[in-house]
């Protein structure tokens, strides 16, 4: 199997009032291409920080993060932005859709990042139809239910066909039925696009449906 994501000895610490707080303490793991892995652990264990570093939104204090063969830990800001546009799709617990844009426009956003304009004008619509929202193209986030908003967020993460999707508590704001439907959707899309998925969750039912589960505590993988 090809390694899609490699995290080696990643540490992250922050300074707060002259005191250094270690959030990640030498985290190491790998994900194969097409694998869906759940990251579990109590609040404050470092899950979200780890996801941010893997997504290229934050930098490790030390260690190496390699995504699709690119070591991203020390890329300059502009290169990191390009990396995110090409390689990572993100799904958040709070959906984080742009409230002023329609569902279709939200999904189109990653295709409109300057320098990577897609010529496939229909792609966003196809992906929305794929997640079952073909009838909601012109709706704004406020006009969609929580589950629908999260499906739009998934479609947005998928539209540029990134090799890696990072999901931070994607079912946290959803009821169990809607949450299950979302996981079905992720598994289905994973199967079709062969995308690697790393998702943080508190929900053991979600973790059980993943290929494997990584447990975090006090900044370490156990």
């Amino acid at each position: 199997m090809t390694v899609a994501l490699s995290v080696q000895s990643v540490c992250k610490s922050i300074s707060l009032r002259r005191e250094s707080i270690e959030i990640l303490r030498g985290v190491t793991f790998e994900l194969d291409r097409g694998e869906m892995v759940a990251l579990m652990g109590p609040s404050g264990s470092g899950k979200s920080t780890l996801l941010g570093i893997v997504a290229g939104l934050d930098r490790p204090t030390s260690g190496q993060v390699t995504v699709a063969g690119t070591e991203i830990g020390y890329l300059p800001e502009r290169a990191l932005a390009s990396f995110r546009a090409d390689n990572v799709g993100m799904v958040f617990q709070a959906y984080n859709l742009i409230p002023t844009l329609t569902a279709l426009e939200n999904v189109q956003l990653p295709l409109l990042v300057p320098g990577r304009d897609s010529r496939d004008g229909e792609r966003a619509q196809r992906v929305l139809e794929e997640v079952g929202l073909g009838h909601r193209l012109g709706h704004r986030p406020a006009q969609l239910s929580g589950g629908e908003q999260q499906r739009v967020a998934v479609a947005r993460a998928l539209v540029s066909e990134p090799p890696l999707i990072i999901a931070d508590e994607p079912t946290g704001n959803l009821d169990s039925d809607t949450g299950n439907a979302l996981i079905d959707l992720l598994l289905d899309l994973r199967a079709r696009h062969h995308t690697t998925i790393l998702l943080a969750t508190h929900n053991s039912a979600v973790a059980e449906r993943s290929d494997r589960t990584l447990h975090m505590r006090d900044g370490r993988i156990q």
Partner: protein
Amino acid sequence: MSVLFWPNYVVRSMWRGGSRTLVAVICVAVGSAGVVALQTASLSLQAALISNVRAANGGDISIATQGSPLARSDLRVFPRLEARRQIAGWAAVASAPATSVGANGTLVPFDVDIVGPSYPLGGQPTFVRPQNGSVRALLRGPRDVLVTSVLADELGIGLGSRLLVNAIGGHGLAVTVRGILAETDFSHASVMTMTERTGAALTKRPRRYTAVYVNVPSGNSGPVAARLRNLFPVATIQTVQQSLDETKAETHDFQQFMLLVALLALLTAGIGTFNAMQSLLVRRRLEIAMLKAIGFRQGALYALFGGEAIAIGVAGGIAGTLIGVLVSRTVTDVLAQAMALQVPYALDGGTLLEGVAVGLGSTFAFALLPIVRAADFRPIEMLRYGEELPAGARLPQTLLVAATVLVLFVILSATLLGDPVLALQLVLGSTAALIVLGLVFAGAIHGLGLVRAPRSQPAGWSVAVVLLALTVLAGLGRSPFLGILLLIDALWLAVLSLTGSRLLPLTVAVRSLQRRPVRTSVTLVAFFIGVLSMALSLTIARGLQTEISAALARNGTNLVLITDPAGSASASRAVRRLEGVRTAATQVVVSTRPIAINGAPLTVASSGSGGSGDADRPGRLLGGITGLDVQHGETVAGITLVAGRLLGPRDSGTNHVLLNSALRAGPFFLKLGDSVRVKEAGSGRTGGVRVVGFYRRPFRRRGFSSFFLSPILGDRRLALRLGGPDAQVVMSLGINPDLLAHDATSLQNAVPGALVIDIGNLTAIIDRILGELLDVLAVITAIALGAGIAVVGNGVALAMLERRREIALYKSIGFRPGDVLRFVLVENALVGGLAGALAILGAALALDLISHFALQTAVPFDPEVSVFVVLAAALLAVLTAYVAGRRPIRVRPLEALRND
């Protein structure tokens, strides 16, 4: 609970508010700074004008007879009054027109005041140089003169400068400048003062007295002034008290105008304060819900938030007062420069306290609504659902608080203006205008959101072609709406031709504007006020300049020569020798003063002279005769007959005259067939004229040469008979513009006993005065514009704070900080462009109204100004957004996505 809890909470909350608190303080400071700067400048100006009012009035009583000068024989009454001890002293000032060649080689016209030994009667005038000068000491020498600061600037001269002065009936006189006098009012007077001995060397013509100053023994000048009004019914007679009252009224009006501008800035900045406070408190809804949940009562929350508002108001008031003090120096200097006045800068302690109080008061007024809203919502809504009731559910409360805010602002304005009615009018008028503007802007933003790329490209391009054609036509037709059309063109072409990532900034910008329609409208209104001020200043100044040039072109006369009858033959010969003469016309002019109508001597009752203001206007309309060659059908250009008949060959050699139709009204109520007895100002000869017609001459149809003609139109022989050697021969010449400067100086050198006036130079002087007035307007409007910019900056800063999560999301998707900044800049370019476009519409409307009602002439709207205003407004908004948005764009995505 510790007593220190309250101040601690307030200070910590403000500290936690960070940028939002800073934005609120800046908005308050801008408003206070405007009030302090404009108030200080206007008080300094007032102090300068009223500090030496007796000297400015010339004595206890001044008799101004500019419109109908007095002859020497008219002055005999004053020694008689002095002998009877009714007056303690008097001084008469004779005036003569003169010219001199300035430092840049151009001819500068001015008035010469010839004063006797008893001048000045009311105390020394204010000297610019030498300081504390004395008229008598400085005019000791036989050729010594004083000049006003305006004349010194026009001639480019200073102390000790020597120059050659030409006047009618002289041969040119070399004089030396010994002192420079400060101006005493807003009239921009170009005056040279000399003694009678020097005046006699300058011109041999009989004196025409345009002012007499009188001192009274008891100090009670009222009865003497009344007696003088009877003796000189068409003169303006003013006591020191009346002069003081008039000056105070003028400066009071000016101060009120400045304060109105300051209040407008305060209102604009208040909008920013409201936005900032709203943002500060909305952000803390959860905290407020918690405070209420644990038992804090509404009153306690009012106290907590009110404490924050007071702290912000005091901080902003102090900062604004300090900024205002710094700015006031510049404003005062610009005002002094533009009005050619000597204005000592004076900082008033009351104004400084007022600045802080204004900061506090305006913060309290504008923070009231956010505070009430924040303290009033039900905690359960926030704690359970994370949101509060929609705004519509609390409409009655909102309206009530808004009304309270208006009342508070009326009180604040009334305190500043000292005029509750004016304050009420200002606040209600501004509120109505703001509501209308807000609705217009909301409509404009909604309309902007409807603009989409057409389904059919050919149809879209057809529309583009039509728009471009309209723009070209607007450019060719010099339409004021050129700037607006260019903006529409740019938007349409962007929608039509841009796709994908290039169109995204525009899409995001329009959607963001639509998302917060109220705040966007409010920001637009605030910015619009500043941009409108800028647009109006520019359009009026440019429009007047264009109108002056057009009047010059219409007139055809660009050189005027004035001489006495004895010099007219040599002047005619000199004119014939000029190379550039295209047209020439000659009239004879005499200065007169009415003394009887239909045989009845003029009295105060018949003239209605009240001794102030424009009381001598009827006298001015009878203040001289223009003698025409009626035998050959000569007339004055631009007049329209209102009643009676025009003059013709049958009037040759008669005393038949045409009068201005305004004389048909009070106080004289003249009619056809009436006879008026007039007295010539220099010779003192008297004669009668009979009215055969009334004419009207619209302002727009007056040429520049009409300034040199007199209002009674009659036969040339009538004028010569009355004036004798004192008559003036006025030659109006049209000269090839390329040869104008050369011919003007050649003519003046050839006939030194004549006045040669280059009208082109007059327009340059008017341009300069307009330019200086524009500076004043620019400084004043800069304060309104500054407040507008502060609100835009405030809006951007708040939007950036509120959209941190959105910005973080764009970045997490792969957009770079520069891409996100582009969204913000495009959004604000739209705000600026829209404000500029609507300011053009407002300025065009205002200019139309001003042209119609105030100037009574159509002042054109310059299309270049229209383009400049739209571009400048957009650029200003973009720059402000860049400064305010650059830092927030650097937000770390993970931090914002997790914490906001």
